[in-house]
């Protein structure tokens, strides 16, 4: 099979060949520690260091950030990130660790930051020299994100920050944070402003990070406390009071619906890769027994597996159709579904896997006899992270019902 997609432009075809060639010669090496299922579950520095090297190499080779302008650390290409992503996944490379930087901070900086700030921060973000995290949610501002109370008070050309962010993945490793702050208490939406903050250098000097433990027992997300942290006004994006607008750029990209394609890679090892993929359920069924025979022979499980494969294929073909304007009723209709659909498919894939496993689904990752290393029950529990975070499924349905279908706002 030629590496070229039908109808692909020459430039794209050449870039694809280049990626494939580089990937076939580059070896990410074997990690010395077990890797987690995704970047937001990174617990140990050894995991991060291994993945960071991989991201730096891929960036050096031009596979990351390639659609960004050259002076922002990119390669000034168009439509190439999607190709690089396909090839990195195809090559079975590990995932990229700086996901919040690549998926949220980078596009937000690109669209809203001063030129000097972009030039300073983006190359280090792409190379993973700086790890990024996101300071949006607060104890009282989850689904109701605009209720953010962490306050930035002006003081000359500085801001003094006080407050408390939660569920901040990767904060324990992060150098920088994107931060949604209240600068005016008299107006809910117009009282917000958006900053980037060098968090690691401020640890113990106005910033403290405390790990939270997930239901799986894994760490990976945190509470971040601000106690009179002073930052420069240079770190503000867009105007004071425009924070909600800037945050929309972040959220749109977080939901996979933004104009910049997020760099992404594979999942490294086969076992972890299978978790989350509906087609992997077929092999799981073939390896499992149910009521005295192969689970792959159980008509109910077959039906459930087909349901998942159909939903997953439907989502994949939806991404393809989203590019064909003539086959879309509304330009944001498919893009705004991405996060909701993907997160629910991932959860339901895991639930079907547990059905296939039957009594063996009681076995956890700390059991040496657990089928597939116990990764499926772990994936099931972790799936609530994605149906809750970044706008819970309930909020996503509000957004779709209101912005796409035009029904009345539910609040």
């Amino acid at each position, binding site marked *: 099979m030629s590496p070229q997609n039908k109808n692909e432009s020459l430039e794209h075809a050449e870039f694809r060949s280049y990626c494939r060639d580089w990937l076939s010669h580059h070896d990410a090496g074997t990690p010395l520690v077990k890797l987690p299922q995704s970047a937001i579950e990174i617990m140990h520095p050894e995991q991060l260091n291994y993945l960071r090297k991989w991201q730096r190499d891929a960036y050096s080779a031009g596979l990351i950030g390639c659609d960004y302008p050259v002076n922002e650390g990119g390669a000034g290409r168009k439509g190439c990130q999607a190709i690089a992503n396909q090839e990195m996944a195809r090559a079975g490379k590990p995932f990229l660790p700086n996901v919040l930087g690549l998926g949220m901070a980078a596009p937000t900086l690109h669209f809203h930051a001063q030129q000097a700030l972009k030039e300073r921060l983006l190359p280090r973000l792409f190379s993973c020299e700086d790890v990024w995290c996101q300071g949006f949610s607060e104890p009282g501002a989850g689904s109701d994100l605009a209720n953010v109370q962490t306050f930035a008070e002006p003081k000359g050309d500085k801001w003094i920050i006080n407050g408390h962010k939660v569920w901040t993945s990767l904060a324990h490793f992060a150098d920088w944070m994107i931060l949604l702050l209240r600068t005016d208490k008299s107006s809910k939406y117009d009282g917000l402003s958006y900053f980037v903050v060098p968090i690691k250098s401020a640890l113990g000097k106005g910033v403290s990070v405390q790990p939270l433990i997930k239901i799986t027992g894994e760490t990976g997300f945190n509470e971040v406390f601000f106690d009179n942290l002073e930052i420069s006004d240079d770190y503000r994006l867009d105007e004071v009071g425009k924070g909600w607008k800037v945050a929309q750029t972040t959220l749109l990209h977080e939901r996979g619906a933004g104009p910049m394609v997020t760099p992404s890679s594979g999942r490294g090892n086969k076992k972890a890769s299978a978790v989350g993929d509906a087609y992997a359920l*077929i092999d799981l*069924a073939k390896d499992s027994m149910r009521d005295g025979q192969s689970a*792959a*022979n159980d008509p109910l499980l077959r039906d459930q597996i*087909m349901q998942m*494969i*159909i939903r997953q294929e439907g989502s994949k073909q939806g991404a393809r159709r989203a590019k064909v304007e*003539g086959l879309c009723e509304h330009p944001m209709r498919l893009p705004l*579904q991405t996060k909701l659909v993907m997160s629910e498919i991932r959860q339901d894939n895991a639930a079907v896997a547990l059905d296939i496993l039957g009594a063996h689904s009681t076995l956890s990752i700390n059991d040496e006899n657990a089928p597939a290393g116990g990764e499926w029950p772990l994936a099931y529990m972790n799936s609530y992270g994605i149906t809750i975070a970044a706008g819970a499924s309930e909020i996503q349905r509000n957004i779709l019902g209101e912005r796409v279908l035009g029904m009345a706002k539910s609040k």
Partner: protein
Amino acid sequence: MTQAKNFAFGENEKMLRDTARKFLQDNLPTVKLHQLVASDSDPYRDPPCHWDKNLWLQIVELGWSTVIVPEEIGGSGMSLVALCALVEEAGRAALPSPFIATAIASLVLRECHTSPANELLQAIASGKTATLASTPKSASWLASDCDVCLADGTLNGSAYFVQDARKVDTLLVQCKTQSGLALYAVPTNSEGVDIIADGIIDLTRDQAHIHLNRVSVSDTQLLSEQACDVLEAAEPGILTLVSADICGAGEWQLQTTVEYMKVREQFDHPLGYFQALKHPLVNVMIMIDQAKSLTYNAACAVDSEPENAAKFARMAKASASEVAAYASNRSIQSHGGIGFTWECFVHLYSKRQKHNQVLYGDAKYQRAKLADLLMGPVYR
């Protein structure tokens, strides 16, 4: 990696589709459709067959029948993707006509590769209509099952679940022969052909079972001597077209219900304010989008990835059949008391969808066949 870019849905396909949409909006708005098919509400009425023949003649002039007929025999030689887009519009309008039955017949005929089949395709391109008569009484959708036999040059037996039988000129009758299964073209007005209308729920089409009693056929009517292969080859396209009809009708159900959510108020709010109504309609939208993406993917596969066509068509029809059930449920329930009346248009579409849902196999059937393809058959 061999998938066509943009589902091969280009400017020509878009123009054809947009013209069709406008034509049906102008000529068959739902209020007119309701007058056409729902004037008699008596549940014990004799099975009616309401359609607008004049509208059909205009549709023929617009060239819908020619889309997948090759250029060399009088067609426009476009793709199944293009035909799919037209059928989606027919579904959106809940069009009563021989269009879809004839399109399905065309899919079968183009797999025959015989002179009689090409001649009939040519006739279809110039306005003739046809429908497939191959299903046995058990409603088995397997291409190998049929209840008609050929003996001494005559057809005897019955075909069931024949779509729009009272609107078409020609039946494509599958029959058992001494050497296998054959397919014959039988004019509906042939001696010995008895078309018995079924009483059906759907008001926008007709269905019949057909008794054949010593119906003489000649070699000029022999469309294929490999009927089973032909029908199996045509099946992915057939499933795709029914899926497209469901997607179009589903979109009408969604948009109509959403509009009602905006205008109807209870408890001082438009109904759409209430998440108990809003969120299920979002789910309908997601399901339609999934089915539509899979339907165009399947059409595209029939056109250019035949090795994947069966798999993708099963996915499309499985997904679409779920849309047919759920969009109908939500459209009635969300309309409340109004939705339970004959005068509210939603019942027209719900009934068409319930028919579509089971036609050529429901979701569970498609998934069982898909599992056979992806996992291998069940070994016992």
